[in-house]
């Protein structure tokens, strides 16, 4: 089915590019405002990033990015519709206009940013590629993986990094490629491959899907830089700015101590000019973005600041228990840093 879907998506994209009237800058925001919701492309099931819970609601950090944009635009985080996409389908879906935002643990690379007509708006999660192996193999380091069969998800940067790493270290491997990350996990469990490679955050997420998570271990090597972030179409700066500043507002809020619990309080009473500008109490910064004056208040109230979003989905408040690490604020030893509102 997947290939049918991929092919279908591509054919639709081809048709859409041929038939659609010429796109012009600024149309995404108008279209989104008109239809009243944000169409968001997410992954086909990855705990912590985007998955459906037992009641069928979408959850995860990638999901919250889109909810945040909806909260900022409409004042209602639920005005989002989700389209689950495989790694292979994702870019065509965005290029063809099937989704407005692609928020699907996608690595920011130069070719994607330039050649594919896409723009990355920021980094929601600083990641790196790692390896998951069965403890039974007794492997302690990725350098011992010569000759291994490796399960990978098709159409990812992972595929490319893997080949670079093995070539650089003079080792051989057999690539076993599937369209869905679930299938790679099943194949690892069945023994079709010796090792599963993916972004480390995904490995932790996939490990909890295994029947016996304790039988598997994530190797210490991180072989690549994987900055993951939301993507929009190139050439629509207005929409680009909205998605980008939604994330920046959350990072700024964490830095300024604004949380979902105190945001309304602070919007009214804060004396701190940084907080007042962020929350729309001072200046017209929302208007420049063509958003409501109190957009950041709605955003933080409903989604929380960056730290809250992180801990709830992948950090202490989740099953994954991932440390902040690189994703801590810049003044806390991490890389998360946002330009000021002024």
């Amino acid at each position, binding site marked *: 089915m997947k290939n049918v879907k991929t092919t279908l998506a591509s054919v639709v*994209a081809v048709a859409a590019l041929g038939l659609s009237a010429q796109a012009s800058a600024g149309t995404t925001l108008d279209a989104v405002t008109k239809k009243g919701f944000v169409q968001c492309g997410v992954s086909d099931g990855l705990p912590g990033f985007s998955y459906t819970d037992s009641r069928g609601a979408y959850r995860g950090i990638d999901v919250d990015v889109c909810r945040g944009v909806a909260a900022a635009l409409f004042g209602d985080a639920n005005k989002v519709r989700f389209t689950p996409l495989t790694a292979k389908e994702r*870019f065509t879906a965005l290029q063809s206009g099937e989704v407005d935002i692609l928020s699907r643990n996608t690595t920011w690379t130069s070719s994607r940013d330039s050649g594919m007509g896409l723009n990355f708006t920021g980094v929601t999660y600083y990641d790196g590629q790692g390896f998951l192996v069965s403890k039974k193999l007794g492997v302690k380091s990725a350098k011992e993986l010569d*000759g291994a069969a490796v399960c990978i998800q098709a159409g990812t940067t992972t595929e490319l990094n893997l080949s670079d790493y093995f070539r650089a270290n003079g080792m051989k491997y057999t690539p076993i490629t599937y369209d869905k990350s679930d299938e790679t996990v099943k194949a690892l469990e*069945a023994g079709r491959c010796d090792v599963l490679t993916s972004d480390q955050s995904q490995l932790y997420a996939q490990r909890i899907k295994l029947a016996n998570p304790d039988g598997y271990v994530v190797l210490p090597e991180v072989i690549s830089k994987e900055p993951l972030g939301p993507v929009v179409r190139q050439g629509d700066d207005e929409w680009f700015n909205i998605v980008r500043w939604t994330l920046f507002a959350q990072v700024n809020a964490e830095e300024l101590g604004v949380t979902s619990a105190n945001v309304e309080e602070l919007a009214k009473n804060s004396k701190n000019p940084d907080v007042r500008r962020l929350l729309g109490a001072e200046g017209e910064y929302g208007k420049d973005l063509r958003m409501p004056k109190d957009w950041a208040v709605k955003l933080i109230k409903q989604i929380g600041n960056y730290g809250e979003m992180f801990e709830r989905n992948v950090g202490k408040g989740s099953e994954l228990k991932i440390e902040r690490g690189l994703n801590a604020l810049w003044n806390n030893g991490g890389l998360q840093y946002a330009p000021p509102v002024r």
Partner: protein
Amino acid sequence: MQNPANGPSTRGSMMTDPKVRAWVFQVLAITTVLAVGWYLFHNTQSNLAQRGITSGFAFLNNSAGFGILQSLIDYTESDTYGRVFVVGLLNTLLVSVLGIFIATLIGFIVGIARLSPNWLISRLAAVYIEIFRNIPPLLQIFFWYFAVLRAMPPPRDSHALGEAFFLNIRGLYLPSPTPDDGFWAFVVALALAIAGCVALARWSRAHHEATGRRFPVLPGSIALLLGLPALVALVAGSPFHWSVPELTGFNFRGGWVVIPELVALTLALSIYTAAFIAEIVRSGIQAVSHGQTEAARSLGLRPGPILRLVIIPQAMRVIIPPLTSQYLNLVKNSSLAAAIGYPDLVSVFAGTVLNQTGQAIETIAITMSVYLAISLSISLLMNWYNKRIALVER
């Protein structure tokens, strides 16, 4: 016929002239088609440019940078997307050729079995047909891949046949021949043996027609095919040495490996298509009137030769056209490969390459044209064969 009421046509009534009208409408139709085509092309081009999406076929020369599970030609990660295309195409052709061969074999056997006077055999054939043609091919692929081949043991507990053949979840490992000293002598001997067989068959036919006596062609051919190369190998030295798979580290190394993805796909496609072919074969045989059998019997022919010499040649004329469609279906169904990660053209080229380059229009266009080309070639071949065996009225 001229209508006398209108009289001879005048300049004002050009549109009433059927010849002129036909021309006008044809030119209009062609112009419209061309205009729509040009509009689509131009619009696509300007949309791509506007959205900053690279277009053109230059990407085929860029290096791919990812590995492929199975490749019939030498392929490394530093090869180009163009070579990835060839690898994918060959993998598609491999599974198609294997599938067509096995499906035809099973199909003919089951189709004939379906007509067997033996109750058990004909029922079994009927059950086979009804089961396999009524389950979607994708499910059959999943069945073979996930239910059957995933149940194989890990490499370290492989089923072994001697010290050379191993079967495990990673595939079937076989010893592979590599050319040795006597290789070329062996190849020449084999070619001579084949030529000898052809000559023998021709001579035997002439001999049969001239004298009415049969010469045992089959045993003779087998003796020639086996004997001559063996003799040459004894003289010139062994043509091959065998590279035997050996368990080192994680996996077996050396020898050939038949990956489970290929096995599952080939099995599922051939078994599925064979059910249709069986019905086609049955319909073909039943289309030959019973009088032919009776006539042949009255000449004293036994059931075997009746089937081979009288029924099948006539049935083939009915069988070939729908059989062609089944072959085309099998080739197109092979694109279901992506569901189990077999690296065929759709999976590798219209999937991974498309995703790595983002050039959807080019890759999809190429892939579509390739399937069109494969299908048309099969059609041409089968039409030629059909013409060859067609009834020639004397």
